[in-house]
């Protein structure tokens, strides 16, 4: 007597195997289609702006703008602060009237976000010899700062993109009047 339940189980397993195989075939890409070096997440999702000599010579900063209006602001690699042999030794967010690292923004409506002009001071970076003020570059509401830099200012020296000074700033104005007025905005794209 044939055991139908065994047959049935075998059939089911076979079916599942087939499904897995066909799934796997869709998942694996054709290597020939893959670029040697793919674009980075920044390149794919942001428009990069370079602000050279912002308010002062040598103060080179970048702004990455996302399609949703948010901007990431940081020190460009050519910033004069990196020319000091000691590198950056401290980052202080307590500038102007308030400590930028202490602001707590909450909720979808981003309550408590402080409004900044393009020349508002965001923070101070210190080297052994000097101190440089980092400014906002764009008009908008400050949502968050990279407070890891307080404990680990050395991260900036590594020049790995993810650890450059980063402040997220919600901004609706970039690309409009701020563009021509203040500084030469250059879009850096491959």
């Amino acid at each position, binding site marked *: 007597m044939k055991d139908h339940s065994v047959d049935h189980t075998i059939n089911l397993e076979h079916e599942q195997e087939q499904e897995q195989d066909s799934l796997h075939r869709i998942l694996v*890409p054709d*290597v020939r289609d*893959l670029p040697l070096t793919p674009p980075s*997440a920044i390149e794919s999702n942001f428009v990069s702006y370079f602000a050279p000599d912002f308010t002062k010579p040598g103060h080179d900063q970048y702004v990455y703008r996302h399609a*949703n209006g948010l901007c990431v602001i940081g020190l460009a690699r050519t910033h004069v602060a990196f020319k000091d042999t000691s590198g950056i030794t401290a980052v202080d967010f307590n500038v102007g009237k308030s400590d930028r690292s202490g602001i707590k923004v909450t909720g979808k409506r981003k309550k408590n976000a402080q409004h900044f002009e393009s020349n508002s001071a965001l923070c101070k970076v210190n080297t052994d010899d000097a101190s440089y003020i980092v400014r906002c570059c764009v008009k908008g509401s400050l949502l968050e700062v990279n407070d890891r830099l307080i404990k680990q200012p050395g991260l900036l020296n590594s020049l790995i993109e993810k650890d450059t000074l980063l402040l997220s700033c919600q901004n609706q104005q970039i690309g409009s009047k701020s563009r021509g007025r203040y500084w030469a905005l250059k879009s850096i794209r491959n």
Partner: protein
Amino acid sequence: MANANTNNTEAEHVSIDSEAAHVISAVEECHDDDDVGALHDVVQGLPSHAVKDLLSVGVCTRCILRLFGIRGNIYSISAISPSILNSVIGEQRHGEDISSNSKESEFEEVLCALCLGILQFTYCDDKEIPVKKESANDMAVAISELVKREGYQIDSFSLEVSVPPIILENEHSVRLYMKRKYGTEPWFQGGPFSQSISAKDALKFSLAKPLETLLDCKSGISNFRIGLTFSHKASKVVQSVAVSKQGCKRIKTGNSIDSLDDSVAGDIKCSDLADATVERSFDGLQDNESSECFKFPLQKVNDACHLVLLCQRTPIYFGGRYLKYSRNVSQTRWIIDDERMGEASVEEIIGSNIQPLCQGDNYKFHAAGREDIDVRMLGSGRPFLVEVQNAHRIPSEAFVREIETNINNLENKLVGVKNLKVVGIEGWTMMREGEAEKQYAALVWISRPLEDVDLDSISSLKDMQILQGTPIRVLHRRSPLQREKIIHWMKIERIGGSSQYFLLHLCTQAGTYIKEFVHGDLGRTHPSIGSILGCRAEILQLDVTDVKMDCFLTE
């Protein structure tokens, strides 16, 4: 007291004639005779002087029957008319032809002061034309014709009736009056009046059986509702009489009855809830209310109620799992500035194939979670529900399988559907059941060659906790929060021919942002693949390979 026997025969004769005079009766005669017999028995049992009193005040026959708490199918008998009651109260018609007389009395000219003509099947239709149906059956015919005209395919129905609040007010007045006048009499002690049937229920009793015959299905709990909403044009006051220290207190909860300004009053359509409120306020009434608190005798009305007939099916649900093969299809319709994002949407592809076959008014798409437009949904698929509103037809099982095949055979093969079937309300609870783990396959690139030790270091991490700040790409519309998520397991699969690309398979807690876990989102997600492997990591493609939920699985 009248000679019951003689009048019985007369009345019977009258009723058979009236049956012949009215057309379109689907009820068999012998059946009808039984009911008529029952009707006579019932009528005999009523106290004649009370009945006469009520008739003189302008209360119609059915209202009298229901005030005395009579239940059942006798309300649908066309033979109900004052002449039946006449047999009880002993009034004789002199010299006139009985049949023509019965015809006259069938067409009661005067609207019942209590039910405003509702139980006399008299109303104004939506074109403001007065309609007088001669019997419950005729009214049932009008209703069934509407159902058929609108093309509903049904296997049951439920009747819902809504009446103007003044009817409850009238009823209360009548009951109080009767209590005062006949409260001491023996038949009243039994409390027939306390078991009065509401006008709504009486109308349902009248219409249920004829409708069952005409629509060829049972009445009861059903997803198909026939709603009869009666309203009265003149302004209505719902006077809830509450007990107070002084005695009778009047609280106006509507417009003044004196102002017949249509624009102010409009149609006050009360829902069942309003009825309950009115009834409750009447329950709290004391006996020693002064007579100013209710109007008696009842005000005569000249206009019939306005009737709105509405057929509606409660929403039906289609459950299943969908697959998304395209990286250019969003889950739901996505339009920014009049421009559609993506080529199509899962919602529209599935919904547009289901709704027309049900002849529904519109549809709603619900899914258990979502994926980005550029992420494919593969494997077992994602559970979803399509809610169709006011479906005129409910497709059979075979038809549903056909819908599934149609979607899967669409030329552009953007979306697939599995295990599609009609589900009840339990579909909702199945979808809502907790947050499921998800399994993914990501195409990852790293900035240095992959090494064997990397495969081990990744596989060895089990139930690893990560901290994700709200990704920048969604930060504009979500709260800035730090979210703790768990990566249950990971596995690297090498890709032949490449040293820096590989497939990362992983299983994570619901709500984990996979893309940000790979590239680190500028350090805002840690640990990340980049931080674990000590290099830069980028994600090129993402696919969902499993949504671990129990619902709508292949049986």
